[in-house]
């Protein structure tokens, strides 16, 4: 097996060396365009290296402890062909009918071959196989949206990534069942994983996509994922990210959305657990009348760290973006929100909203929030806001004065706070499940399950919530 450890020298130096030493493995199925992109990404990484705290977008997220660790890096899948994924992992969302596409340690798991072509023309498969079969598609889209000049992690991913998931929805096709992408990290050592997903939505097409990141071990692995999503004219994407990782893990996750004319995006990142989670949400309006809801919820405790960076690029007129991120931070947890809306010259009639709200449950919990508007057009509607608060004492008194005990009153208020984001989930079964998980999380019961809860193979008991939240 081709692998190497990253010990003994800095991770940057090691990666530079690995790139040279493993060129044939990395470049395997590349065409010239792709190789070119790798080389320029590597040049960019060579220059920037890993991010550090002096960079504005990394000021509040310290990754020095993460890049100091030794990792194992693999240039071949870490498992044998024909692996039975169900033995280690099962999706456990009742009534959720999805087409599940899995990656184990960043490598595509092919149950029915590396490339599946549906009757309606939808293609789902491994990026590795697509590089071979559809070099033109790759040339057109790969690395086009994942801008790497400013983000060392994205550059490194663009240079190294060998596999990931590829989805193509042809023009005019509305995919009925949601597609679920699961990346499971399961290894007996600390590994460094870099996968790269590419999703292409044709004109007038629509897709629901659920992207899950889970770990089912207790290793201190580092995952650096880049996902590029292209929405052609009038395409519609309903996108979810669910993150439930162990307390030691680090997940660096960047999603780049490119919206052509009349495209509609809704994306919702729900962070339930994880050691260090960094989400970069990058939305670019390239055509008029685009619409994007960019939402997130992070519930962190202990020493967990959740960082959401949003960059919305209004390059054209008449687009609408709406950001809503909410967080509840307990113990010594830290949160970061950085929302950057750029309205370029000429992007008139832009409607951009930003909102970040936080509840800090202890004196030690920290949130750094920075909603930020950069506007170069004069006929726009933009708003931003951020709030940081403790539990509302007046509301607590009101609930308790009706006989509700302190614990349930707190829970009721925290749940109500989180529900604003959960209510945006349009897939009913997913909403019910996330709802249950959030309640469990708020009751402090999620950490009991060391494994992932969203899809763990140990069957959990149905959630019993003292407060019956169901509507009568």
């Amino acid at each position, binding site marked *: 097996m081709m692998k190497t450890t990253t010990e003994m020298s800095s991770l940057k130096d090691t990666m530079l060396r690995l790139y040279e030493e493993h060129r044939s493995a990395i470049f395997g199925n590349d065409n010239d365009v792709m190789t070119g992109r790798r080389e320029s990404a590597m040049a960019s990484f060579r220059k920037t290296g890993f991010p550090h705290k002096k960079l504005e977008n990394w000021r509040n997220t310290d990754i020095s402890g993460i890049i100091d660790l030794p990792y194992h890096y693999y240039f071949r899948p870490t498992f044998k062909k024909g692996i039975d994924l169900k033995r280690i992992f099962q999706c456990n969302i009742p009534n959720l009918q999805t087409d599940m596409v899995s990656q184990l340690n960043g490598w595509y798991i092919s149950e029915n071959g590396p490339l599946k072509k549906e009757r309606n023309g939808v293609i789902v498969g491994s990026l590795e196989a697509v590089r071979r079969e559809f070099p033109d598609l790759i040339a057109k889209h790969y690395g086009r949206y994942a801008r790497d000049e400013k983000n060392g992690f994205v550059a490194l991913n663009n240079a190294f990534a060998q596999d990931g998931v590829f989805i193509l929805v042809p023009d005019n096709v509305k995919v009925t069942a949601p597609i679920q992408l699961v990346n499971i990290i399961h290894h007996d050592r600390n590994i460094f994983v870099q996968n790269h997903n590419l999703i292409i939505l044709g004109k007038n097409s629509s897709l629901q996509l659920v992207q899950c990141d889970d770990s089912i071990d207790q290793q201190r692995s580092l995952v650096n994922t880049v996902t590029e999503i292209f929405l052609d004219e009038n395409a519609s994407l309903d996108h979810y990210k669910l993150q439930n990782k162990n307390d030691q893990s680090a997940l660096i996750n960047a999603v780049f959305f490119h919206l052509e004319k009349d495209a509609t995006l809704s994306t919702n990142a729900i962070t339930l657990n994880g050691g260090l989670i960094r989400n970069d949400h990058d939305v670019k309006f390239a055509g008029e009348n685009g619409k994007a809801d960019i939402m997130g919820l992070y519930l962190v405790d202990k020493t967990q760290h959740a960082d959401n960076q949003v960059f919305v690029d209004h390059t054209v007129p008449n687009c609408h973006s709406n950001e809503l991120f909410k967080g509840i931070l307990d113990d010594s947890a830290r949160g970061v929100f950085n929302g950057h809306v750029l309205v370029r010259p000429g992007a008139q009639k832009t409607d951009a909203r930003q909102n970040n709200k936080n509840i800090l449950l202890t004196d030690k919990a920290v949130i750094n929030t920075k909603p930020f508007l950069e506007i170069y057009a004069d006929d726009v509607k933009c708003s931003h806001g951020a709030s940081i608060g403790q539990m509302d004492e007046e509301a607590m008194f009101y609930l308790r004065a009706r006989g509700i005990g302190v614990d349930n009153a707190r829970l009721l208020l925290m749940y109500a706070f989180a529900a604003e984001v959960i209510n945006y989930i349009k897939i009913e079964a997913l909403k019910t499940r996330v709802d249950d998980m959030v309640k469990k999380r708020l009751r402090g019961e999620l950490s009991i399950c060391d494994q992932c809860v969203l899809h763990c193979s140990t069957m959990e008991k149905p959630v019993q919530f003292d407060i019956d939240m169901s509507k*009568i």
Partner: protein
Amino acid sequence: MMLTIKNLHVEIEGKEIIRGLDLEIKAGEVHAIMGPNGTGKSTLANVIAGKEGIYKVTEGEIIYKGMNLLEMPVEVRAREGIFLGFQYPVEIPGVSITNFMRTAINEIRQYKGLEQISAGDFLKKMEKAKKLVEIQSKLTNRSVNEGFSGGEKKKNEIFQMAMLEPELAILDETDSGLDIDALKIVANGVNTLRSKDNAIIVITHYQRLLDYIVPDFVHVLFNGRIVKSGGKELALQLEEKGYDWLKEEAQP
């Protein structure tokens, strides 16, 4: 005796607001507490309900159904039958009135060793309470008090009172901000809930409310003390003469 307050002294940030207050209330009675602004009416209501933070009881005691009320947490007081109708009801986005009430009723029932209320019984109870204060169904599906008008908020307080069936209800300026129609509805609700087993304390500035909720006793609170008590005719006297004659009487 349901409630006995003896020589109560309460401070807010070092300033004495209630200065030796005595009051006795029996089941079946309606007491009105009147008085000018800033004399301690709301402080008294909040101290009985158990609001923490700014209120500091420096002397005296409150005995409720034989228990030392001041030692009981807010929610236990509520479960034992104390209800505060808020002067300024709090908005709680994201919590529907239905969930709020169901949670409250079930916690109270659990405290009393009773089973959870069935969905059917809860619905019936809610329909009845809604009718009582003439609130529309769409209101109960909304978040608690969020975006409610002043009148809706006050009706919602009486709705909650009907749902929770308290033994001792304290209505803190429930009439403020109500037009005459809403006032009649609220008063009618309170009168319907009035029984020989429960007691009600009505706190108000104005005689107007007492035309509709007729009290058994009227007390005038001034400078942190009850300076005059009487029957319902005292309220009329106040309406006519104002508070000044009592202020003079109250001077030592």
